[in-house]
């Protein structure tokens, strides 16, 4: 399952870091951040609840870049 989320982030490098953090989160099969459209596409592993996984993704992103936001 792939879902798209709106994000808020200031710099392109931070967007790359968010992408990396999201990819490393458990339950995420693949993640891509588009800095230009400020969107994050997340592909979930099967049987994972997007809500729970995304909460963890958001937490991980906040850890590497304090100044970012994912609108769940």
């Amino acid at each position: 399952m792939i879902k798209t989320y709106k994000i808020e982030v200031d710099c392109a490098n931070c967007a790359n870091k968010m992408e990396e953090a999201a990819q490393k989160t458990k339950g995420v099969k693949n993640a891509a951040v588009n800095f230009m459209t400020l969107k994050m596409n997340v592909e979930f592993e099967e049987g994972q609840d997007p809500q729970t996984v995304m909460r963890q993704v958001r937490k991980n992103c906040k850890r590497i870049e304090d100044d970012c936001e994912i609108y769940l």
Partner: protein
Amino acid sequence: MNKKQKKMLVRILIAAAMLAALHFITASGWMRFALYLIPYLIIGYDILFKAVKGVKNRQIFDENFLMSIATVGAIVLAVYEQSGDYTEAVAVMLFYQTGELFQSCAVGKSRRSISDLMDIRPDYANIECGGRLERVDPDEVETGSIIVVRPGEKVPIDGVVVEGASTLNTSALTGESLPRDIKTGDEITSGCINMTGVLKIRIMKKFGESTVSKILDLVENAGSRKSRSENFISKFARIYTPAVCAAALALALLPPLARMIFTGAAAEWSVWIYRALTFLVISCPCALVISIPLSFFAGIGGASRAGVLVKGSNYLEALSQTKIMVFDKTGTLTKGAFEVNGVHHSEMVNSELLEYAALAESASSHPISRSLRLAYGREIDSSRVSDIEEISGNGVTARVDGIEVAAGNDKLMKRLGISFIPCHSAGTIIHMAVGGEYAGHIVISDIIKPNSKAAIASLKTEGIDKIIMLTGDTEKAAVQVGNAIGIDQVYSGLLPSDKVEKVEELLKGKPEKAKLAFVGDGINDAPVLRRADIGIAMGAMGSDAAIEAADVVLMDDDPIKISKAVKISRKCMSIVYQNIIFAIGIKTICLLLGAAGFADMWLAIFADVGVMILAVLNAIRALFVKKL
């Protein structure tokens, strides 16, 4: 500017003014230190704050941390050397913040201008309700209901015109500036702008399945497929910053130690530490990281403005490396509609012969008779025709104005015992006999699109090595079309499955780096579109299957758009390479100058911010594709 940016601007102005004022105040010792600390904290407090947070979260190599180390280091050096030169640290922070502000404004601006370009999303649909028009959300309109589109409004949902006639501006979808006439019964695509008359439209699809939604969806998600260049840059950034930091550490420690141990000279710690701090200022990879995706984003935005939808930056990259281009014939290079292409050896005026043919064939519903009637162009007066007899697989005999007329293939002529002149042209040949005498023949064939030849020529000048055409048609017809427009290689008589095989064969035979693109109309060649390195579907306005299967979608069916797409991709890629080389090059030079002691922190920050500004401005250039 948004609130955040305005606040930053105010901070920059205050800090700059204070720094300028401090230049004229002669204070010394701790007093001087305290005075300079005020603008430093005004401009840099958030950076310092974030740096501490970053360290807590084990994110050591972020630019906040580096800027903090560099400026705090410079201040400590100034205190240690008692030089009182705090200006540098404040200025570095000031320029860094100015650069960040500029970047955020530039990105915001290009983000907006590209979204404006793609502003085809309809805001509302008009529904007639008790004699009054009511505005509703396009999402809420059910299929089968009737909506009203007034002049100047966007067509919100795909449908069929049930009342009214008008001209449509399709430029937002196709990049084509020529307006299109539309009348009752015509299908109409969402995203066009109604220019002249009021139209009533019966909705055929839900908004979510309409052309406009599909296109917006495609463009907005284009960024999730990243190009090799983009992946290279994010990998590079991951290595670059730690590498420069390690180099900075080495620069601070090794030369002084070497001096002490080997030459016994003074270590000059502060000189080398200063040089190391300069390194840290240059270590931010922002110029690169911002300008590459921005270039692709602008390129994809510019392309969609020209009616070329690219599904991801990887496809834009691949398109620029295309060396082999394979075309489907029918519907791509030719119109896919049969038309009268010529009248040969006619014993009478051509139009007269056509008139006889059209009248004789007037009762038939065969596509051939339809194209004859179309070429005749006037109303058929069926009272002039009598005794129509259709001979299956041969043709028609009839009496027109009392004269015996036969229209059909060579079998019919042989059957009637009339000698005929065989034709050299490819296509369907209609031999005509009037009053028992041979009267010439009419050639009906698929017509080459007006721009096909120009498109092929333009692709060749763009450096496409091999242009190949695949078709299910007979060899004669295929070779004729191929020669007429300058195709290098023609494969004819192929079934749809043969086309996939042929493309696979070509894929195997080409060098790794050369990409193969397949151009089709997307109707029955979806498997081939998927199999090729890049699938290009044309004439896709309203065809869902093509939009799904292809990587690059041309909104109208003009083949010249293919060469335009290639040109756009080339321009975008050259901008990407310029930015990569420029940014990495300048940084490397500055690092070398810094290590040798020729560059101070001032130059370093100018290099950092300046490179970024130039790279961003260069990236925006990818948006302008009109003149290509």
